C-alpha cells in the first residue's frame, strides 16, 4: 500500500506542475507501472531498503543518480529505468 500512496502523490504533484521521480524496489514495479507514473527507477533491492543495503553508500548514491538522470532525460509519461546489479549487504 505504501507504494500506491507514493504513486498517488506522484500523480497529484505532476498535475500540479511539480516534476517527480519515484525510486522503488522491483517487487513494486508492476503495481506502480499500472499507475501510469511519469518517471520510475526500479531497484533490485529488498523491501524496506529501496536504495540499497545499510552502509552501502556507493549503491545508495548510484540509485539516486539514476533518478536524477531520469528527471533530466524523460520526455513523456511512463519512463522506467531498471538499476542493474543486486542487493549486497555488509560491503
Amino acid at each position, binding site marked *: 500500500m505504501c507504494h500506491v*500512496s507514493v504513486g498517488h502523490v506522484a500523480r497529484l504533484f505532476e498535475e500540479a506542475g511539480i516534476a517527480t*521521480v519515484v525510486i522503488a*524496489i522491483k517487487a513494486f514495479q508492476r503495481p506502480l507501472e499500472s499507475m501510469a507514473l511519469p518517471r520510475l527507477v526500479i531497484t*533490485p533491492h529488498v523491501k*524496506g531498503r529501496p536504495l540499497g543495503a*545499510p552502509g552501502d553508500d556507493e549503491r545508495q548514491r548510484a540509485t*539516486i543518480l539514476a533518478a536524477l538522470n531520469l528527471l533530466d532525460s524523460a520526455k513523456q509519461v511512463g519512463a522506467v529505468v531498471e538499476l542493474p546489479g543486486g542487493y549486497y549487504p555488509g560491503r
Partner: protein
Amino acid sequence: MPDDPKQETFQEFKNSFAYGSRTDLNFKFLKGLSNEDAAQFFQDLLWKLGDSFNDGDFDRLIKHVYQWQIRAYSKEGKWTYTEGPFTPLQKPVSKSRLALLTSTGHFVAENDPEPFGAKNLTQEDAIKRIGEFVKAEPELSSIPVDTPQENLRARHGGYDIRGVQADANVALPLERLLELEQEGRIGRLHSEAYSFVGACSQLRLMKQAGPKWIEIFRRHNIETALLIPV
C-alpha cells in the same frame, strides 16, 4: 501461537507472519501465497541454506527472498490508470530546487506527529493499530535535511524498520542528497525533507492531504520531488 500448536494448520502458520502471532513485516507476503507456494518458499529456503553451509555464501538466501517478494507483490493492484500527467523539468536538476518525500514514517525525535493523539507510540503499537492507519488521513512530517541520524525516528506498521534504523539513507537518503548538492548535481536541496506513513487511506490522501502538500511545495518554489516508497 495457538493454545494447542498441534492444531495449527499450515495455512494458519504462514498467515501468522502477517499481523498475527508471528508478525514479521519482511515476510508478511507469505499470507498472500497459496499453501503450495508458501511450502515451496520454505523448502527452497532451507535447501539453499544447506548450500550456504558449504560455501558460506548467504547471498543466495537474500536472492531467494527477493524473488519471492517480487512474486508476491507483483499482482496488479486496485489502483490502475491508463493515462498519467507529466510535467517536464523546466531546468536541469543541477539548476533546480529539489525536495525529498518518502512514505517511510520518519520524523524528528522531538517532533513526534503523535498519530491518533497517542504519545510515545511505539513501532509495535503502530503494527497493532495498522487497521486504523489505513483508514486515516496521512500526516506529513518535516525533517531538516541536516538532521543527524541519531535524531531521526521511524514508525510505520507496514514494513520492517530495522533497515532504516541501521542506516536511514536506505530509504531517507539525506546524507547522499547533501553530498550530491555539494557536488553541484542538485541545484538546491530544499532545507526540509518530508515523510508520512504510507499505510493510509488513499481517498483521504488524494482529497485531503495531497492538496495541502502541494501548497507546501509551491510555497517553497520546489520544482521537482524525489519520491521513495517502502
